[in-house]
């Protein structure tokens, strides 16, 4: 005789240590099994798109740092200045493009390190958090000496970057690359072969390739499901067409594959930084652009590969000093959309592992 069970609704968040911010999930359970998950977002909606219509193109650089994905401020600045430069047909000096690429890859490493640390905490490995934060502090030092800011840099400018790299910065950056490559095997020892970590991630939260595409997932989440797509390769910006790097792809689509993809991406980022440091020419870092910049009437879509995936900005200009309309295509929002697919059928204890593995930032989801 089948056992009669009743469904239970469980509320997770908005204050929950592992929701990575202020996400609320309404989980419907049948015993221990997840029947349905409905994410409730909007707890961090900052009305950035509306605010951008009231600020000049230059002022908006400071706003996209804070209003969008705050773990990857450089990536936000990049997509914004890229959109403005494409619409205004503004040239960027070679040196600035190399500096930007280095900064973007450093930002990717720092974002992935923070993800790795918090994912470790979610699964009970506190040491991973402390180790990742140790490495991240070094990147913060690099950022601080070059840009003056630890988290929000406001370093990119329309037509270049704010200032040249300080003396000795490239040496310190190269030193950090060696340091990080030395440390990455430690994480392999700590997590990759750890039986508890494997039991909680391998085969858990599988997202098949066709569902990942249908849900609009991008970045490491899609690449872990077998989609060999990277905006840096498909639509190169800055100097990504001049450097050699691999796109790590896994086909399993589970939490463990997403972990492996991000770990490999850090190695590839180091590779890109090293090539950029070698190739970087001397010269100008900013072309002359008026402070009260007026863009021609028109519209443009710029897309970049942020640490979380395909980050795009759709910009409409009516010929004035301020944008007429800005639409942000946030990767974390689309990845969160695939969450329900990943969670259905798993146990309630896997909620944390699956949510942690997609690396959402609520500021990116809600904007």
């Amino acid at each position: 005789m089948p056992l009669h069970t009743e469904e239970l609704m469980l509320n997770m968040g908005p204050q929950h240590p592992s929701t990575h911010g202020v996400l609320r999930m309404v989980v419907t359970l049948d015993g221990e099994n997840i029947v349905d998950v409905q994410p409730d977002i909007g707890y961090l909606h900052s009305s950035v798109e509306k605010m951008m219509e009231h600020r000049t193109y230059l002022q908006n650089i400071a706003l996209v740092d804070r209003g969008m994905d705050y773990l990857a401020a450089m990536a936000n600045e990049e997509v914004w200045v890229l959109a403005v430069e494409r619409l205004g047909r503004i040239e960027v000096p070679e040196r600035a493009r190399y500096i930007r690429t280095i900064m973007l890859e450093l930002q990717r490493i720092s974002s992935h390190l923070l993800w790795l640390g918090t994912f470790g905490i979610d699964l009970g490995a506190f040491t991973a958090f402390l180790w990742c934060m140790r490495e991240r502090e070094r990147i913060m030092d690099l950022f601080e000496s070059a840009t003056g800011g630890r988290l929000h840099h406001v370093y990119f400018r329309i037509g270049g970057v704010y200032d040249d790299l300080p003396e000795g910065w490239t040496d310190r950056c190269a030193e950090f690359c060696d340091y990080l490559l030395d440390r990455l095997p430690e994480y392999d020892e700590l997590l990759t072969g750890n039986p508890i970590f494997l039991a909680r991630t391998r085969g858990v939260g599988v997202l098949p390739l066709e569902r990942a595409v249908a849900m609009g997932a991008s970045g490491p989440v899609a690449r872990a499901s077998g989609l060999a797509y990277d905006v840096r390769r498909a639509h190169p910006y800055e100097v990504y067409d001049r450097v050699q790097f691999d796109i790590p792809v896994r086909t399993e689509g589970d939490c463990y594959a997403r972990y492996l993809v991000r770990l490999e991406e850090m190695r590839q980022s180091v590779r890109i930084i090293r090539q950029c440091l070698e190739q970087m020419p001397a010269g100008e870092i900013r072309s002359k652009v008026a402070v009260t910049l007026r863009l021609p009437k028109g519209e443009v879509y710029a897309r970049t590969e942020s640490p979380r995936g395909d980050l795009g900005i759709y910009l409409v200009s009516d010929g004035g000093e301020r944008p007429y309309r800005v639409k942000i295509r946030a990767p974390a929002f689309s990845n969160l959309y695939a969450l329900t697919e990943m969670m259905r059928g798993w146990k309630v204890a896997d909620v944390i592992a699956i949510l942690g593995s997609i690396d959402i930032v609520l500021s990116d989801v809600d904007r």
Partner: protein
Amino acid sequence: MADPQYLPRSQVLPLDRALEIIDALPGGGVILTKVEEVLNWGRAASVWPLTFGLACCAIEMMQAYATRFDLDRMGVIPRATPRQADCIIVAGRATIKIAPIVRRLWEQMPEPKYVISMGSCATCGGPFYYDNYSILKGIDQVIPVDVYVPGCPPRPEALIEGFLKLQDKIKKEPFLRRRIQAAAAAQAGG
């Protein structure tokens, strides 16, 4: 005269007059203050905050807990539930949607409780003050704030300074006197 054992508590312990009696005793006030100092020394050295990150400042808050800055050495150990926390760090911008939840978390915390407002957004709305329809213009509209930490976002050192300021504040509090008054008020009300 009745046996004091069988008298109601209010007649044995005249809480509403307790402070008066203590101050009238020779050296009573001094002893009370000394006991308070010892208690406050202990309380200040173990401020346990709630892990509640709203936005960007939460990342700097995590850095402050982690390797280089290590807030643990100040006795600051994060707790995951408001029932075990002494202090809430409002780290980041609070929206109108999250405001009632912050208020409820604060209400769930046991007395005595403190609030640190970390960053410009939590203090006054920060860069989201103008042209914005969704951000609360300062968390002090919802809960009372003890320490404001400026910055966008504040460095981990700034947060540590905020905790040191909070510890100074705790050390100066007339903790026992307040507790006796609160107990007297509760007794009179009950």
